[in-house]
Each structure stands twice: as structure tokens, then as C-alpha cells.
């Protein structure tokens, strides 16, 4: 049914021009012979430049203006928002004005009553509905005016670009209401400049220019035409080939395929973060220099800043568009980020990178807002999208790739919110380092290509990703800005920073993901990566080799070009939290379930060489084992990551001793690690630690930790016999902060020397088994470089089955453990200086009986005394301690640290 009919309609305004006080009258023909029909239930948009006659058309429909020639016929009741604020009595309240305005629209009081509540809830201005309109903010005013107009139960709704006012929430409401009205069969005529909104609401668009209809047709055909012809003329250029038509219009790229617009809204554009605010390329003023039929340079300058961006666009014969962005700015302008984005129509339903892929969910009213699909800190070579209905809709698949290396860019794929209703592909270059090295010439910050006619998708993706992907069977290694991600059978074994390295050079840490990396495929199964950092005269080289589907080899070298001071090197696997159990040649256990604010060392020891591994319960993830050889004093640690990462860390470190940190130019191998998945468990065997025995007593020295066994039963627990000292606020234990070498061993004695990493000290232990159940321990400390110490301790942690403690003068029982893993241990008894010994014992119950253990210093140094403590809930051990709490600066030299005796099952109390 025809609702609105224009028949050769001419409309004129008689305008008085006054020049130098002389008035002249001219006839201005706003509409020239317009003819069109709008049927009931259609939603039609009217677009055109300013002055094209759009508002005049609305006025003709509304009956505000009468045509000078021709006819207009309109059936039905009309409501609309043509002039904001008309009819409102400012002294009256919003509520009273509702009745007034609705009455002016032609509703009777009873009709107004029935829609009153709808209007109030749509306007959503709260209690202000009862306040005089004159105190409304502009936004409230518009909401009320629009709420009345849209709830009027009219047959035709006219909107004159007033949806632009109002926040996102309100716009969403309006769109939803308009859709409701459409469903009810109302006719909508919408004048706007917002092409995105237009596409949401209207199927048909009339393009007006100078009062005449240029085109009247489906929205996807008319809008591109408008985009081509509107906007500042100097900023518009077209590149065409075959079905592909690319329009550059003042900072946005619009892609048309066979007349259909693939890019709504901003299309292809850039966003720069200048002085911490975001500016899109459409906000700049553009000029174009066309080099040839298929190539152009567009220069955009921002008004407020001295920042120029230059786009080089070149369309090749295979329907691929090269897009390069360069930036030229004054040195004092801070540009911290550059995004190259392409906004695509929601006809695109699937996305893929060659490494992962997914589907865009449908965008509707209940969708929450912008969603992203890729992990935040990765980069990829290409993002592709395609439409499930590619054939019916004639939509080509689109590949957006970045050329060259991309260590500093992050890739993201988005699904937009309801208002924007589109997909977004993004390459983000966000590295202050790189961007601050601008010189007064043009710096290229993004180089990419958009391809439309790729016929063999898989082959193309494989070709693009070949330098970044190593696979064998189900095992996959993906290389991306300074990290390698490991997955097997589709499961991610690593997370966050995945496999990466770090260097501690000249007092600063350099992580691999802050460097600039180039990866290259050397062979079918080998990829080599070259990493460099700004300001460092070295390069790190990674070599990954996959030989079968159960493991790979990773070697790391350093190529030093100028003398550097390398203090520490580190290689790390950050593994998924589903790995619950760790194992090594020196022990195994379960990771704690709670992550603390900082990393926590699980084994509390440095593992010199061999194997470390992770397993997950119920085999959710394959067993992961690392083999690493002994090299330059490297050692491994198994840690629980901090609260932020919630991961398990396998780390291999090398701490260069003070004298050996300077490296001359040359090539050095840092690490060589072999990773095996699901290797047979027995590969990790408990290393045999040296032990001495005498009678029932057996003492095992386990890399800085002593374990005491009596009749085959272990009396010590967890940390066992160890020394610890505190320097500059940090604790350094003999087991977890040092690496030990056995210097001598015979039947009943053992000597070992431990070298600490972070402090320039070594300790020399002499452990002698004497008599029946007596261990004599002599510890000396060698200080190489002046250190400040606050505490020196020798500790013996014993099984919690010991329930009683005793000393020369006093005794008692141990209370329950209450200290948390981060708290200090409970002090039970601080022994006065003249006590000769302390000890623990159990009850005399045969089943629970353990031999009494006594601990006494043989030489009591002044300032040292004995303590009895209860450890925390994690260790659950009883601690006998000999310590010194006098803070002091220790000069280089040799010091006697402790000389004590541990007696097991002594008969007397001496």
C-alpha cells in the first residue's frame, strides 16, 4: 500500500539576499521534480550533502510545506522530530509538557494516558520528569522530545538526524524501538549522515543532490555511491580493478565488490594515540597525489598537531591492495600507539589466522559489547575473514596481512557492539621505543596488504605462516614477537609469556618479548629466530628443531658485537596451571593451589643439570619434561608463578660470577634444552645423593641440604639441615640459592663447598659421623665481596611427629601450626645464652616413637644463640636453630659460621 507518494514535486524557497543594504529576492529551488513512492512498512533513508533538500522532503511529507508544483500524497498519521524543542513550554514540567506536546501531535487525553508511561520510561530522566523543562540538560531535553515523538502511535515516523544527539545507551534504545515499529508495519523515513546507523535501520536509500534524486535503491548500492562523491573533493580517490572498487575518502578506505559495500562505518582507517588521546585518520585533512592508475599517496595532517601521516596505496593485478602507513611528526609530539584497522560488515562470519580460527557470534541487542578473540599479546602474520554465505551474497574472503617482521605489533580480531554492528581487524603497533626513535623524516610504522582474490586459502596461509609455525604431528610451536607458544593436540601447554628468555645486562632485565625478532624457516623442521634490543650490542639466536611429534630441541646463543656486561641469563617455560605435579632428579611434589603475590620456589633448590618435568592429573595435558646438560654452572628451578600469571614455571638460569660477567665480542652458546612430551616416567630418576652411614644413622647430603635417617626412617623434614642468611632484606638458603660440589668423601665424613649465586660468598661444610648417632657439622663462610648481613642461621628442620621440645633448663610441647606460608615461623623458645643444647622428642608411645634429637653448638660464639620454632603450615616441621641476629657488614675474608653437634637417641641429657 502506498503511503507516501511524491509526484514531480517542486519546492521553492524565496530568499531575500541583502548586499550592502540592497535587498534582492531570489527563488531557490530546493526540490526539483522529485518522484518516488514509499510503501507502508518500508524504512527509507534519505542521504545527501548539506543543502541537498533532505529536510525539505521531510517537511513536504509532514505537510509543513506545500509543493509549488507537483503533488505529494501522504496517508496516515505522522509524527517525527523535525525541530527540537518546538512547542515546549519551559515553565511547565516535563510531565505537563508530555500532555501538551502529545496533544499538539493530535492525540486525545485518553490516548496520551495510555502512552504516558511508555514515554516516561523511554526518556529515562528519572525524577526530573516533574521538574520544569527549562532546567533540563540538552541530553534530557532530546530524550524527552524523542520519547514523545517515537511513542506517538503514528503510521509514519520522520527522523531528521536527531539520533546523533544522545549517548550510546540511548541510541541503542532508539534503534531497538525503531525495529519494533518496523515490525509493527510503521513506515520510517530517516534523514542522516551516519551511514552505519542508516544500514541498521533502512533497506532502501534515496540519495539526493541539489534537489534531485541521484539514486534510489538498496542501501548497499547507494551508500558507496554517496561515499565516493561526498566529502572534501581533494581527499577522494578511487582505485578500481575488476569487481573490486576501492574508495579512499578523507582518511577512510571503502571496499566495494560488485557494487556491494564490504566496509561499513570507518572502513579501513588508522588510529594514532597522540599525547594519550586517540585520533582516527578521518579527523585529519587529506590531500591525494595519484601516481598512476593503480597507485596513490594520501597525506593527512591533523589540525592540532604537527603530525603527518602518509598512506601509500597500490592495487596490483591480483586484486591485492598494498597499504603502507608512514608518520612524520615533530619531535616533541608523543605518539604512543598506531592502529591499522579494517571495519567489516557483519556478513563476514568467520575469521582465521592460519594458526587459530573462530566464528563471529551474531550481534544482537543482548550482546554485551566489544569482544576480542585473540590472546592479548600475540602477533600474527595475517588475519583473514570470510562469509558463510559468500556465494549467495557475493562476498569475497578478505586477507589482511602485515608485511615484514612484526615484533612490535599486536593483532586483534573484534566483534563490535550493537550500535556499530560490525567486525574489526586490527594491527596495533604499540611500542614506545620504536616510535620514539622518529627523526624528521618519514618513518614507516605499518606495512600491510589486503587481498581479495585468494583462491587457495590453506596454501596461502601456510605460505605466510611458514616462518612462524613448526609442526610435527599434533605438536605445534608458534613463534610470535619474542615468544614461542607450545601446544599439543590443540591444547595449550604454555601461557602468557610462554617460552621466552631474559637477559640481565648492566643492571637491567631484557625480556625476549621486548626485543625485535625475526624468524626464518631454515628447513622443514627448523626455525631460527634473531632477537635484538635497542641499546644492546648483542643479538640472541634461538634455534628450534622438531624431529618427531613428541619433542623438540631448543638452543640459544648470544652473539656479542661489543664488550657487554652480562650478569644473568634465563630461559623459561611458563606452563599452564593444569600442570599440578612437578618432578626432578632431586625430588617431586605437587604445586600449591594458591598463587601468591610473588613467585614461590617449589623445590627450594637449584637443580644443576638433568631433567625437570611437569605432569597433570588425569593426564589432561601431556607430561612435559625438559633435559638440560651441565653447562657453565647453569641450574634449573621449578616455581609457582605469581597471582597475576597463575602459571607453573620451569626455568633454567645462568648466573655469572662477579669476575666473569664481561663478555668479549663472539658467539656463545647459552642453553641447549631438549623437550619431550609423554616420555616414559622412568627417565626422571632420583639422583643418588652422596651419603655416609654409621650403624643406624645415615646422613645424606643433598645439594646443600642434609637429611638424617635412623633405622631407615627419616627424622628430618622438607628443608632438613641447612644454613640460611639474610642480606639486604632477602634470604639465601644453602639449598635454594647455591650449587654444591662434593670435595671429599670417605666412610664416615663428607666435605662439600657451595657457591651462592646472588651473593659473592661460598660455604664449606664438613660433616663427620661420630660414635653412635652423632653428626658433627662444621661450617665456614668465605666472603668474596663486602656484604651486609642481618642474620646468620644454621637450621635443622625435623619431622612434625616430634611433639615435645626440651633444653637444658626447660621443656614443653609444640603447639599446633598456625603460621601461613608467608608469615614468620612461630618462636617457641628463645634459649638463654648459657644453655648448652636444645632438642626434640616424641611421646613414649611405641608406635609414634622417634629417637630424641639434640642439637648443641660446640663452640659458642658470642652473639649466637639457640631457638626452637614451629614452622609454617606448608613445611610443617619443628625447627632447631642456631642463629646470630647482629646486623653487620662483613668484609671479605674467612669466617667460622657454625660448629655444632647433632645427637640422635642420646641416653643422657648432655
Amino acid at each position, binding site marked *: 500500500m502506498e503511503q507516501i507518494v511524491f509526484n514531480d514535486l517542486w519546492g521553492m524557497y524565496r530568499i531575500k539576499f541583502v548586499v550592502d543594504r540592497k535587498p534582492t529576492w531570489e527563488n531557490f529551488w530546493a526540490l526539483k521534480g522529485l518522484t518516488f513512492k514509499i510503501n507502508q512498512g518500508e524504512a527509507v533513508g534519505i542521504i545527501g550533502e548539506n543543502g541537498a533538500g533532505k529536510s525539505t522532503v521531510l517537511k513536504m511529507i509532514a505537510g509543513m510545506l506545500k509543493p509549488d508544483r507537483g503533488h505529494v500524497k501522504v496517508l496516515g498519521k505522522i509524527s517525527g522530530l523535525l*525541530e527540537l524543542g518546538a512547542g515546549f513550554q519551559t515553565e511547565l514540567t516535563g510531565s505537563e509538557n508530555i500532555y*501538551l506536546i502529545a496533544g499538539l501531535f*493530535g492525540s486525545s487525553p485518553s490516548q496520551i494516558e495510555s502512552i504516558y508511561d511508555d514515554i516516561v520510561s523511554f526518556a529515562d530522566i528519572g525524577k526530573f520528569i516533574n521538574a520544569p523543562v527549562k532546567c533540563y540538560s540538552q541530553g534530557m531535553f532530546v530524550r524527552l522530545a524523542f520519547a514523545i515523538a517515537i511513542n506517538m502511535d503514528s503510521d509514519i515516523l520522520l527522523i531528521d538526524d536527531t539520533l546523533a544527539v544522545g549517548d550510546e545507551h540511548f541510541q541503542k534504545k532508539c534503534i531497538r524501538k525503531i525495529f519494533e515499529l518496523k515490525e509493527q508495519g510503521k513506515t520510517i523515513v530517516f534523514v542522516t549522515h551516519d551511514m552505519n546507523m542508516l544500514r541498521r535501520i533502512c533497506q532502501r536509500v534515496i540519495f539526493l543532490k541539489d534537489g534531485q534524486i541521484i539514486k534510489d535503491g538498496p542501501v548497499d548500492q547507494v551508500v558507496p555511491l554517496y561515499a565516493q562523491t561526498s566529502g572534501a573533493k581533494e581527499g577522494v580517490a578511487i582505485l578500481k580493478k575488476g569487481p573490486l572498487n576501492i574508495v579512499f575518502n578523507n582518511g577512510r578506505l571503502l571496499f566495494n565488490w560488485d557494487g556491494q559495500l564490504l566496509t561499513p562505518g570507518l572502513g579501513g582507517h588508522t588510529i594514532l594515540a597522540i599525547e594519550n588521546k586517540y585520533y582516527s585518520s578521518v579527523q585529519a585533512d587529506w590531500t591525494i597525489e595519484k601516481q598512476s592508475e593503480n597507485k596513490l599517496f594520501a597525506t593527512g595532517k591533523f589540525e592540532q598537531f604537527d603530525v603527518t601521516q602518509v598512506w601509500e596505496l597500490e592495487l596490483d593485478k591480483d586484486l591485492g591492495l598494498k597499504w603502507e602507513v608512514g608518520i612524520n611528526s615533530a619531535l616533541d609530539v608523543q605518539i604512543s600507539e598506531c592502529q591499522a584497522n579494517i571495519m567489516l560488515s557483519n556478513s563476514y562470519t568467520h575469521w582465521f589466522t592460519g594458526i587459530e580460527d573462530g566464528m563471529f557470534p551474531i550481534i544482537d541487542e543482548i550482546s554485551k559489547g566489544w569482544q576480542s578473540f585473540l590472546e592479548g599479546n600475540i602477533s600474527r602474520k595475517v588475519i583473514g575473514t570470510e562469509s558463510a554465505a559468500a556465494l549467495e551474497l557475493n562476498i569475497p574472503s578478505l586477507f589482511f596481512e602485515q608485511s615484514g617482521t612484526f615484533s612490535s605489533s599486536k593483532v586483534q580480531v573484534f566483534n563490535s557492539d550493537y550500535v556499530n554492528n560490525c567486525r574489526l581487524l586490527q594491527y596495533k603497533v604499540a611500542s614506545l621505543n620504536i616510535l620514539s626513535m622518529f627523526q624528521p623524516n618519514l618513518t614507516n610504522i605499518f606495512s600491510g596488504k589486503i587481498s581479495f582474490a585468494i583462491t587457495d586459502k590453506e596454501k596461502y596461509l601456510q605460505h605466510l605462516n611458514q616462518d612462524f609455525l613448526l609442526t610435527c604431528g599434533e605438536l605445534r610451536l608458534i613463534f610470535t614477537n619474542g615468544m614461542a607458544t607450545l601446544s599439543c593436540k590443540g591444547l595449550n601447554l604454555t601461557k602468557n609469556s610462554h617460552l621466552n628468555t631474559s637477559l640481565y645486562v648492566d643492571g637491567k632485565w631484557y625480556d625476549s618479548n621486548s626485543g625485535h625478532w625475526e624468524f626464518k624457516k631454515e628447513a622443514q623442521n627448523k626455525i631460527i629466530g634473531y632477537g635484538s634490543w635497542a641499546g644492546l650490542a648483542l643479538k640472541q639466536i634461538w634455534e628450534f628443531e622438531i624431529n618427531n611429534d613428541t619433542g623438540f630441541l631448543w638452543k640459544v646463543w648470544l652473539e656479542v658485537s661489543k664488550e657487554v656486561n652480562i650478569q644473568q641469563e634465563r630461559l623459561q617455560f611458563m606452563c599452564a596451571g593444569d600442570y599440578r605435579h612437578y618432578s626432578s632428579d632431586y625430588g617431586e611434589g605437587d604445586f600449591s593451589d594458591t598463587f601468591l603475590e610473588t613467585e614461590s620456589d617449589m623445590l627450594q633448590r637449584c637443580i644443576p643439570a638433568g631433567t625437570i618435568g611437569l605432569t597433570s592429573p588425569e593426564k589432561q595435558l601431556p607430561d612435559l619434561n625438559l633435559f638440560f646438560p651441565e653447562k657453565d654452572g647453569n641450574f634449573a628451578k621449578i616455581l609457582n608463578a605469581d597471582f597475576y600469571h597463575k602459571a607453573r614455571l620451569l626455568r633454567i638460569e645462568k648466573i655469572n660470577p662477579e669476575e666473569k660477567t664481561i663478555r668479549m665480542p663472539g658467539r656463545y652458546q647459552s642453553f641447549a634444552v631438549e623437550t619431550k612430551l609423554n616420555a616414559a616416567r622412568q627417565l626422571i630418576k632420583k639422583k643418588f645423593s652422596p651419603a655416609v652411614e654409621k650403624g643406624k644413622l645415615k646422613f645424606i647430603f643433598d645439594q646443600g641440604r642434609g637429611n638424617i635417617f635412623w633405622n631407615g626412617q627419616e627424622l628430618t623434614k622438607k628443608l632438613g639441615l641447612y644454613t640460611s642468611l639474610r642480606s639486604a632484606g632477602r634470604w639465601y638458603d644453602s639449598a635454594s640459592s647455591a650449587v654444591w660440589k662434593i670435595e671429599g668423601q670417605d666412610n664416615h665424613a663428607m666435605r662439600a663447598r657451595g657457591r651462592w649465586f646472588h651473593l659473592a660468598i661460598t660455604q664449606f661444610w664438613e660433616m663427620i659421623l661420630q660414635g653412635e648417632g652423632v653428626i658433627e657439622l662444621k661450617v665456614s663462610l668465605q666472603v668474596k665481596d663486602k656484604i651486609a648481613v642481618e642474620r646468620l642461621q644454621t637450621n635443622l628442620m625435623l619431622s612434625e611427629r616430634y611433639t615435645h621440645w626440651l633444653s637444658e633448663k626447660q621443656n614443653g610441647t609444640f603447639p599446633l601450626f598456625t603460621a601461613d606460608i608467608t608469615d614468620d615461623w612461630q618462636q617457641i623458645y628463645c634459649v638463654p645464652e648459657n644453655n648448652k643444647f636444645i632438642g626434640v622428642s616424641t611421646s613414649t608411645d611405641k608406635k609414634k616413637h622417634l629417637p630424641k634429637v639434640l642439637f648443641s653448638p660446640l663452640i659458642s660464639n658470642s652473639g649466637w644463640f639457640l631457638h626452637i620454632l614451629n614452622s609454617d603450615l606448608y613445611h610443617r616441621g619443628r625447627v632447631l636453630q642456631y642463629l646470630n641476629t647482629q646486623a653487620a657488614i662483613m668484609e671479605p675474608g674467612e669466617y667460622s659460621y657454625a660448629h655444632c653437634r647433632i645427637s640422635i637417641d642420646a641416653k643422657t641429657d648432655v
Partner: protein
Amino acid sequence: MLRERLKNLYLYRHALWDMAVKQLEAKYTTSFLGILWAIITPLLIMSVISFVFTVIFKVAIKNFPLFILSGIYPWLFFSSGLSEASATILNKQTILRQFNLPREILPLSSCLSSFLNFLIGWLVIYPIFLFFNPKIILYLPLLILILLLHFVFLCGLSLSLSILNIFFRDVEHLLGTVLMFWLWMTPVFYSIEMVPEEFRWLCNLNPMTSYIIYYGDVMYRAVIPNFTTVISVFLWGFLSIISGWLLFLRLEAKILKRI
């Protein structure tokens, strides 16, 4: 077509009433004495004029203040009603640009507003007349008739003037002077008998003359108005409304571009 317009107007009757009432409210809500001004103004004028004419000019009319009041009160209604109504379209252009309502509503609601104002005043003024001359109660129906006819006359003129004002802004400026001139041409401060025979035709030409005489008959003299007066009143009423409305319809299309 006229029938359609009438139907349209009928549809918008609520808006018409609403606007009239709100216009009336707006006039008085901000002032302290409010609606009392509807009464105070005519009474004040009556007092001053009476004083001047009886004490200074020594006009010999029995119960001069009442005589004055019976003429001046309707005149005030007419003159202020017309002034306000002729400016409405110009003042409320925005409404015409946004809403597709029958444009007559604007001047008509203004007239209605003035009429309501007029009626409210009568609530106080009629008892005053009644007090001095209880006989006039018999002529109350006739009073009601003239009130309505006077209203119709006002509407007609308002329609013409309001639309003419869009084309010739002079109307606004002229109206003030014309009304003043018109007032003296009408036997409000003097009775028609006082006018010399040669000039009486001038007064008879004046449409308002018959209205004022009618009012006087019904309120002051307590007699039935004579036949010519009544015919005159009806004729002028219908003439005014018909010509006013037709003029309005004729020029309506053109104003849309002028505002």
C-alpha cells in the same frame, strides 16, 4: 474541504483547550495578584474615566460609572484579545514548523484564552451590575448570546489579522493605534444619543457600535435591544468569521515559507 477542516479542528479540540488554558495560566502565574487582574483592570479604568468625565467634563449620564463599565469591559476584552491573537502565529512559528496541526488553532486558542479571561471577570462584575439594578437578571440569556457572538466576531478578526501579520508586519504596529482610534469611534464613553445626527452614520458604520449598544441595553438600561442592533450584531459576527476564515485558508500555504 471546509468540512474536513472543521473535522480536523474538532480532532484537535483538546489541544485547543489545552493551549488556551495554559496561555491563561502563563499570563497570571508569575504575578502576585494573578487572576485578580482580570477584574482590577476594568474597575480601575472605570474609576478613572468616571472621575474625569463626571467631575471634569461633567457629562450628564445617570450612573455614569456603570455606564462606562458596561462598555469598557467588553471593549477591553475585544481590544486585548485582538492584539494578542494577531501576534500568535508569529510568536509560535516553531510549533507550526514541527507539528502538522490545523493552523487556526493558534489564533483561536488565543481568542479562547481571552474569552475565558473575560468570563472569569464577569463572575465579579455581573454581581456589581445586579446590585445596582436587580432587573437585569431577566436579560441574562441575552447577555450570554452577545458574549458568544462577540467571541465569534473576535475570532474572525483574529484569523484575518494573525495571518496578515505574517505578510505585513505593519499590522502589529498599526493595530495599537487603530484600536485606540476605534475606541473613540465607538459609543463607550458617550451614548449614541449624544452624537450629533450628521455624524451618527459614522458610528453606525462601526461594527462594534451595535455590540456596545447591545451590552448597554442588557446591562445598564435593562431593556431588550432593538431589532437593528440585533441584526447588526449577528451580521457582523458571521461576516467576520467567514471572511476571516476564508482569508486564513487562502493565505495559509504561503505563510509556511515565511516563518
